[in-house]
């Protein structure tokens, strides 16, 4: 089997189970984002792939070979750390050349490769610069170049962009994705930022409490979340429980209410799919309780029989409501997703 495969991998620290029986296969050339709230086990999983932690149980296979017992320094993976871990005692060029030096690559060859890599990250002529003299984004690029110096089989990144400000982060996401596509390297990024995952990944792996909740392409994760945890974590959503407003829901959409109740879970609808129409012409009658006008989008909070439903629209679609306005809410059937509990 080609690619990386995790089989029933678990990691326990004393009584605490950080990673709980995770199985996953990643074909070559895939860009994977492990996404989840802090403490969900995503970093521990990445560190086990890198060999920095030993799985308590389970095996990790690369191209069908068990790599679990192989120590980190023999795995030939490139890794970018959250702190970047650039060596403060070495300059930019020596940092990038470090893995080459360790493998005994000749001086001339090292120099050539460093120049190539600096070219790749658009930092030509920075080889002699001390690391401390770089900006945040430049450091980021150096860490990436260093991890890629040996053309590793696997490229691992642990929250690589978390230290950057919002603008730079978005630019780096695009850069990282383009670089990965150019090199065709299997890449695993750990992040807690769902926007980042949506921007870069071929495959998003949502983790919660040490388990994989859903592994799917970004759009599928967004459109068809597997459970309430995923739906809530990826973007914002309206989670309507059938228990509380079942009667209401049942009257309007009997088939959906039935499905939801039998799954014992909730109904999810994205705010941009919720339609607000003139009072008396929709499914449910409600009252606007709060309006958040963000300029580009408007979030309208509607109270429907004690449950708050949020709708997002753009200013062009219609004139904004005001708090206290009566309004009707319509939930298009095709946009509603039934979630397991």
């Amino acid at each position, binding site marked *: 089997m080609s690619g990386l495969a995790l089989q029933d991998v678990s990691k326990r620290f004393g009584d605490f189970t950080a990673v709980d029986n995770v199985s996953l296969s990643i074909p070559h050339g895939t860009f994977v984002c492990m996404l989840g709230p802090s403490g969900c086990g995503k970093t521990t999983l990445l560190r086990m792939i890198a*060999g920095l932690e030993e799985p308590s149980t389970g095996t990790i296979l690369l191209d069908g070979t068990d790599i679990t017992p192989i*120590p980190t320094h023999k795995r030939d993976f490139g890794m970018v750390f959250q*702190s970047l871990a650039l*060596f403060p*005692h070495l300059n930019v060029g020596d940092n990038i050349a*470090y893995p080459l030096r360790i493998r005994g690559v000749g001086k001339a060859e090292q120099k050539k490769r460093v120049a190539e890599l600096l070219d790749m990250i658009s930092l030509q002529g920075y080889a002699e610069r001390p690391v401390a003299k770089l900006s945040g984004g430049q450091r980021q690029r150096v860490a990436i170049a260093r991890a890629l110096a040996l053309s590793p089989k696997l490229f691992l990144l642990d929250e690589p962009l978390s230290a950057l400000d919002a603008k730079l982060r978005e630019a780096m996401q695009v850069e990282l994705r383009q670089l990965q596509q150019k090199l065709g390297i299997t890449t695993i990024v750990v992040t807690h930022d769902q926007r980042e995952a949506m921007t870069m990944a071929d495959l998003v792996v949502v983790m919660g409490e040490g388990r994989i909740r859903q592994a799917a392409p970004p759009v599928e994760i967004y459109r068809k979340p597997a459970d309430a945890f995923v739906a809530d974590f990826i973007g914002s959503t309206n989670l309507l429980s059938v228990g509380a407003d079942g009667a209401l829901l049942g009257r309007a959409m009997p088939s959906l209410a039935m499905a939801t109740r039998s799954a014992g879970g909730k109904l999810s609808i994205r705010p941009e799919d919720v339609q607000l129409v003139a009072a008396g012409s929709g499914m449910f009658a409600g009252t606007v309780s709060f309006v958040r006008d963000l300029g580009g989008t408007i979030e309208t909070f509607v109270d429907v029989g004690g449950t708050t439903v949020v709708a997002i629209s753009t200013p062009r679609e219609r004139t904004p409501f005001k708090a206290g306005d009566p309004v009707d809410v319509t939930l298009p059937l095709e946009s509603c997703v039934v979630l397991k509990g």
Partner: protein
Amino acid sequence: MSAATLRRIVFLLVALFLAGPLIVVAGVSVNEKQSLIFPPEGFSLAWYGQIFTDPGWRSALVNSLTLAAASAALAVMIAMPLAWFLWRRIAPWARIFQLLGVAPFILPPVITALGFLTFWATVGAYGQPWTAAISHAIFFVTLPLVTLSLGFSSIDRSLVEAASTMGADDRTVLRTVVLPLILPYVISGYAFAFVLSLNEYIVAYMTVGFTMETLPIKIFNALRYGYTPTMAAVSIFFVAVAAIVFGLIARFGDLPRLLGALSGDRD
């Protein structure tokens, strides 16, 4: 009275108290005649020359420098693997050795000195110059131990992990990452032990007091038989050496951090 004025007054008083005796000693050290007079009469640096020309003082100086250099080196050799081990491994039991390393420094020195005296007397090596080197190394091992522990704890462990993902095994990591980063702490630990060994009296006295004269022993012995300005010159020489060494540590290292402040970010 403003806070700044108060601070200036307190600083001035403490400075006077700390510098006062040294100013007087510096004064008498440049007296022309061999007499204990202050303010000095005439000006002469001859007494400083004596440290290096008089055979007695010169051999004491050489003894002291040799002892300090050797014992500080040995102290670092003991502290380095211990501090590295405590940082590298999970071994709570090894803390006992850390405690042993700190103990001689906290206990009244006369106790450690007497311990060495009974020990060297028992094994029959009493009075051998090398016994003083070992004794000082143990006595001052605390200093490199503390600076090195601090140094290791300041190394970001992800640097080591990064090195291993790039193919470095444990020894290579030690050589290419850990040692370069720990070097300033090795040097300051050595310097602390060196300066304190240079000035130490009681342990040196109890181990080799009757066979070898170090400078402090020489000064004390000379003091018993009366005053010579060379003592004053040696004292000032010592203060200067200490100030230069600590000044260098401050210049190339982070002194406030070494002395227990968090990273020095106030400028």
